[in-house]
Every structure is written in C-alpha cells, then in structure tokens.
C-alpha cells in the first residue's frame, strides 16, 4: 500500500505541471491573517471581522472610506437624547431560509456580553442600556447617556438569528452548525490558520456576488504569499511587502492595487512631571521633563523629514501625515498646516528651551505591528541626531512592547494607530483626552497629556447629536491636540494588493479589508 502510494507520488511529481488551472468561477485569496473563530461575536480583531463579513452582515455597513452606509438597517435616527431608532431592511433571509427581523438584532446585541473573548466586542455595545423591538422592522436602543457614535459602533455589529440560542459557542460556529448569517456567502469549512471556504449565496439581498466558490487562505509569511501568487496558487494577495511592490512595478504579468490605510505612525512623548526613562545631558539626568516644554516637542516635530520617510524609508508606500486620521474621516481638520521640515528652526527652538546641545533620550517602537514600523523608528532616531540629540532607539516585538507601554514604562514611543471607526471620537478620545476611567476616555493616553481646553471641546462634541455640529467640534479638538503636539503624527501607511494582470478588478479599501464580493472578474 505504502509502496504504491510512494510510486504514485513520485510519478505524479514527474508529471505535475503547475497548480490546477482555476476556473473563472473560483476565487482563491492569499491573505496575511484570517479569523480566530467563526463566531462573529468572539473578537474585535480586524481580520476576524473582514472574514466573517462574507457570511454575516452588520447592522450598518461602511464604504471604502469607512463612512457609514445602510446594511441590514436601511436608516437610523436619534429620536431623543438617549434613544436611537433603526429601521430594518425588508425581505432579508438567513442562509437557512428563515426571515431576518429586529428580534435577531436584539438577540445579537444581548449575546455579545455572554460569549465575547479576550478581544471583547462589548466595546461596540458599551453604550447600550436596553433594546426594544417596536415591530419586526423597527428597533429602539436606549443608551447610557448620550451616545452620538452608536451607529459607528454598530458597523461592527454582526447579526445572527435569534434561534442561535445563548448556549452556542465557538465550536458550534466553527463546525458550521450555527454559522448561519444573511451575508453574500455561505460557510463551507474553516481550519484555524488555514482555509476559510465559502460558497455563493444566490439569494443575497445585495445581489449575488460574482464568484461561486471563494477560498480565503491564510499565508502569514510575506515571501510565501508572494510566491503563492507568482506560482499561480492564489489569484490575489494582500499586504504586499514594499520590496516586492517595487519589483512588481516592472513585471507585466502582475497588477497591483494601492490604497491609503487607516494606520498612521505616531510619536507619543511623555509629558509627565517625571519621565519614565531618564532624559540626560552629558550623562546627568536633567531637572524636570524637557518634553513638557512645547518648544521641545515642536523641535522634535520640525526635525522630521516626512518626504524622506515616505520616499526612501517606506519605498514610496506612504504619505506624510499632519494629524492622527486620514483625510475625509469624520473630524479631520482642514485647518492644520502641512508639517514642514526645518532643522534650523528646530535647533533654535531647542536652544530657546535651554538645550543647545540636545539631550539623550530613549525611544521605543514596535517592530512587527505594521509594515515599516522598525525602519521608520531607526530613521527618526537618525533625523533627531541631526538636531543634536542622542537617541537610543529600540524596536520591540509587540508582545513585549504593548504590556510595557500599558504600564507606561517608556519616555517616548512610536506605534501605529488605526482609526477603525472612521471618526475622531475613537482616536482622539483614546489617545489625547485626559485619562478618565469613569468617562471611558484616555485609555491609550500613556503620555500623561492633559489639556482642559481640548477635553472641554471634545466632551462637548461627544454630547452633540447633530452630526454637522459634532463634526465641527471634533475638527476643533483635532486642531488643538495636534498644535499642542500631544502626539506627533509622521506618516500614513499605504497597503498594496497584487493579482495576476487582467484577471480581476477591485477597489482597494482604506480599512485594508479584502472583500471577495467586491472583487469582479475582468
């Protein structure tokens, strides 16, 4: 038996020519990361939402610039200060044929706290006080206090049938038994870190997608993913590394798609009275914290040459950033100037602040979080050394970096932040607001930054239901925090997808999601 297997193996080896040709109806995706579970209420992980979106729909969807658009809900409005009303889409059916209605949404909201894991989805239901089904197509959500961003939170609210039952856990979803959604694809099978196999839902309310069979294969290694595309094993890959992107430019057989991402690399200087790692001049610890001086933070900012970071360090796959969110996001300030590189002015500011010969400072970054974080980190250290600083740059694995950063052990850090929700409350509330556990703001404010003026404007925004007025207030808050150099934005990262030339067409998304149903054959 084994012998014949061996023989047939060798024979097939000799005869084997490339991977079997893929039919036009089939789409094979090679992706850096996949889901951790098929339960859509298990985790907030981006790759999880991206994958499960094929099987389950969210109450509200987002377009390729992360701005809200109707999903299972066709409209939503605040009917008073603490109540949101959602109108459901009519005639939507689950994969098992049952009807979708407001009861399913209520069940899904209530299921989240019961089943969610260490990356908890309660994040998206934290404002929910109670849920009321008015009629099968109308749902009212009462919020804890005023919650203007509730619809944003519900862009990640996946809906499962109310028949699922509170007992169902990951196993039942992973096996497919409970993997019943309203999405454009039905679930076929999944292996952790392996393939997610999907089949077209011909009854999809948004119109049946182009590909009949879709496989989302996880290939975590960048080089292996590129090789899989080049050898024809997969049709499309995401997160093409910068070096391969350059060589693909000269390769006619491949086509690339580039998009801005939501990720911006930010520097966070600690402005506490005593900095966690000492800042020194001539080996002696300085009195007080130099970073508390706005002139010093401005000097650090002016010494960054963002053009060089983009063109040289990131091989062109980035854009200079002047605030924490990409253009077009809710609360993006148009008033903020482009950040100029001016080493002379930077030196002058530093001298004015009392450090004509610079100082010695520790600078800690992530090295595996997003493409380019480690190289940008080193480049920044070099740029600041021109200013006369001695920068001890250290790029660490996220496993080490995040817990230590949470303990606020670093004086100056750089890491990527992505505005996942497409609006300012998420980013500025977590990073720039004074730390306030009660209000739930400033959770990721590790620098000790606190500006009452910013807090006031931001809080006013968070209590304004009128979206135009709120937008104005958030724009103002962005402006204050950025002019204050609460954080120093450096570059917006860009993402690249690649496919065999002339085989398919896609619109790259700012949230980096690869949605099979938004890809069309050419």
């Amino acid at each position, binding site marked *: 038996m084994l012998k014949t297997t061996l023989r*047939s193996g060798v024979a097939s*080896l000799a005869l*084997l020519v490339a991977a079997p040709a893929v039919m036009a109806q089939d789409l094979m995706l090679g992706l850096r990361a996949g889901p951790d579970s098929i339960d859509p209420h298990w985790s907030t992980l981006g790759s999880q939402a991206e994958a499960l979106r094929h099987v389950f729909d969210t109450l509200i969807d987002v377009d390729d610039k992360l701005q809200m658009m109707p999903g299972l809900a066709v409209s939503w409005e605040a009917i008073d200060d603490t109540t949101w009303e959602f109108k459901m889409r009519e005639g939507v059916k689950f994969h098992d044929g049952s009807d979708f209605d407001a009861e399913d949404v209520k069940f899904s909201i209530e299921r989240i706290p019961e089943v969610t894991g260490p990356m908890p989805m309660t994040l998206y239901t934290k404002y929910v006080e109670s849920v009321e089904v008015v009629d099968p197509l109308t749902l009212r959500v009462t919020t804890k206090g005023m919650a203007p961003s509730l619809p944003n939170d519900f862009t990640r609210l996946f809906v499962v049938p109310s028949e699922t039952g509170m007992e169902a856990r*990951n196993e039942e979803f992973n096996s497919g038994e409970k993997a019943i959604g309203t999405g454009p694809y039905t679930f076929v099978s999944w292996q952790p870190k392996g393939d997610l196999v999907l089949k077209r839902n011909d009854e999809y309310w948004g119109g049946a997608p182009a590909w009949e069979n879709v496989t989302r294969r996880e290939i975590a290694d960048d080089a292996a993913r590129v*090789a899989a595309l080049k050898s024809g094993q997969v049709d499309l890959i995401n997160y093409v590394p910068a070096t391969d992107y350059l060589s693909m430019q000269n390769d006619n057989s491949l086509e690339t798609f580039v998009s801005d991402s939501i990720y911006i690399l930010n520097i966070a200087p600690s402005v506490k009275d005593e900095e966690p790692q000492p800042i020194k001049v001539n080996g002696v610890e300085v009195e007080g914290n130099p970073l508390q001086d706005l002139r010093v933070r401005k000097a650090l900012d002016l010494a960054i040459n963002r053009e060089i970071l983009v063109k040289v360090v990131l091989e062109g796959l980035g854009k200079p950033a002047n605030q924490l969110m990409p253009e077009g996001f809710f609360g993006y300030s148009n008033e903020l100037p482009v950040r100029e590189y001016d080493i002379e002015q930077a030196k002058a500011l530093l001298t004015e602040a009392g450090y004509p010969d610079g100082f010695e400072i520790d600078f800690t970054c992530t090295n595996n979080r997003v493409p380019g974080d480690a190289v940008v980190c080193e480049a920044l250290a070099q740029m600041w050394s021109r200013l006369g600083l001695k920068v001890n740059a250290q790029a660490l694995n*996220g496993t080490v970096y995040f*817990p230590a950063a949470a303990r606020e052990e670093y004086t100056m850090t750089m890491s990527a932040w992505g505005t996942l929700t497409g609006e300012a409350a998420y980013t500025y509330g977590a990073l720039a607001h004074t730390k306030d556990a009660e209000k739930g703001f400033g959770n990721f404010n590790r620098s000790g930054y606190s500006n009452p003026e910013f807090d006031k404007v931001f809080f006013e925004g968070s209590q304004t239901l009128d979206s135009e007025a709120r937008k104005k207030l958030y724009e103002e808050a962005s402006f204050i925090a950025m002019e204050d150099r609460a954080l120093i934005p450096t570059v917006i990262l860009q993402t690249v997808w690649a496919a065999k030339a002339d085989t398919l067409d896609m619109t790259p998304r700012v949230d980096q999601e690869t949605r099979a149903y938004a890809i069309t054959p050419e």
Partner: protein
Amino acid sequence: MFGYLVGRLSQAVVVVFAMSVIVFVGVYAIGNPIDVMIDPGATAEIRENLIRQYGLDQPLWRQYFTFVGNVFQGDLGQSMVYNISVTSLVFSRLPATLELVLVSVTIAAVVGIPAGLYAGYRPNSIGAKLIMALSVLGFSVPTFWIGMLLIMAFAVELGWLPSGGRGEVAEFLWFKTSLATSNGWSHVIMPAINLSLFKMGLLIRLTRAGMVEAMGAEYVRFARAQGLPDRQIVFSHILRNISIPVITVFGLELGSTLAFAVVTETVFNWPGVGKLIIDSILQLDRPVMVSYLVMVVILFVLINLIVDLIYARLDPRVRLKGGS
C-alpha cells in the same frame, strides 16, 4: 529493566514540572496577555473585567495551581485566542507536522547514512570530497533561504510544484494524511527536502567520522585478515558499531524537528504545530504555550527512552540500570 523505566519516567515528571513553572513565570514576567490582545478602543472597565474573567488578577502561584489542578483532571485548558480546547487545537495540526517530519527524516537517513558510509570508506575519492562539501552547505546555509530558493526555482520559475500549503488528504489506515494522495506528495516533497538538509549534513558527517575511525580499528583489520568481503565488514560490523552516536543524534533531531519545524512551516505555509506555537507566543496565548511545551518535553523524554532501548539492543555492553 523495570527499575530503569520507572527511573526515566519519574525524571520526566520532574522535567515537565520544572518546565511548566519556567513557562508560567516567563509569560507572567512579559506581561498581561490582555494588553497584547485588547482592542485599542476598550474602556478600562472592559479591561478589568477581562482580567478578572481569565483569572489574571490572581497571584501567580494560584494561577499556576489552578492550571496544574486542571491538568490532573485531564483538562489542558482553552486557547484564549480560539476558545477551543488546547488538545483539539494541537491535534488538529499535529498530523501535518508528523507527515512532514516523517518524510524529511526518511530522506535524511536514506541519503545521509549511505553517503556518509561511502565518504568514510573512500575518504580520498572525489565523490567523498563532493559529499563532504555539500554536507557543510547542508547545515551552514539557513533553512529559510534554501526554502525560498526551492520555491523560486520549482514553483515560480518551473511551475512543477506548488509553492506551499498542504495537499489533499485521504484516509490511509486510520489516519487522514496527505501522503495518501499524489497531490499531497507534490505539496510535501519540497518542504520535506528543505527540512531534511540540516539533518542530512549532520548524519553524513557523523557516519563518515565513525566510518573512518572504524576502518582503522583492530576488529576491522582482523575481519579483513580473515578474508571477509568488504560489503559484509561494512554492513554487519562497522555499521552496527558506529550506529550509537548516529541514533542518538537522529533521535534528538527527530524530536526538535517535530517540535520546532517552524521555519520551514512558515516559508512553505505548512499548517503544522510549529506555526501554531509561534503564533501563540506572539499573542501570549498562555494555555497553548504551556500545554504545548509540556507535550514537547514528554515527547523528548519518550524519544530518548526509545533511543536508550535501541542502544541496549545494538550493543550488548550497554546495561539499563534504574535511574541512571
């Protein structure tokens, strides 16, 4: 013999225990897994609740004894990332690693030992010098680099083999294995060769060294004087005499390949346990790390035990005594 087995097994228990303490303390020192996993937007309240829910607010010793208590009840715990039991997670990926390792050590032994014998038998021939030069390459060139070269050559340029992943699986005896299909073989052969190179180099050098030494030994000269044919001398006398170091190294390599084939698994996107453990370390998925490493320790102890038993079989001078 019985005393020996008991001694070895009780050693294993001590090693497993020590190992689990080290991993626990190590992970504890790195920090809180929740801080690695949690979404940036989570409130402090959500974070506190989670830490409590996973028992991470308990003192280290209590967390440890809860874990040990569960293990004694046969429960290695749930993965924090996947929320499925660690046992089923590891066993869902173990067959892939087993078949990769099996093919690769077979290649290493089938090619490496005869090549080493030849190189030791005719140490001055051109063939022997070529073999020795290649064996140096085998363990000095990084695995991932050779892996990438293989992929570029056979998958991208020539298109003969797939660039990665595991092929179709089929039932073979009681197992579902990709070694039962030709498509599966086309997937396994390249990573297996890649994984075998280091071991092959090692086996060649070990066998050759033993061979050269044995060729000058008294018993070989005596056998020659008796007029025995070279074939018989090499295969019945020398091979048996030099096999003890070869088997020791082979056993250790087998264990470490099983546990840590991670580089090859990554380059070839092979869905084995090596990748699982690395991902678990990156996400601080402590239940998976601890349980997996405990399994690895048990595996090593077992392999060493088998190697010792083989010694005794091969060399009548080796006596297995309790606890030694």
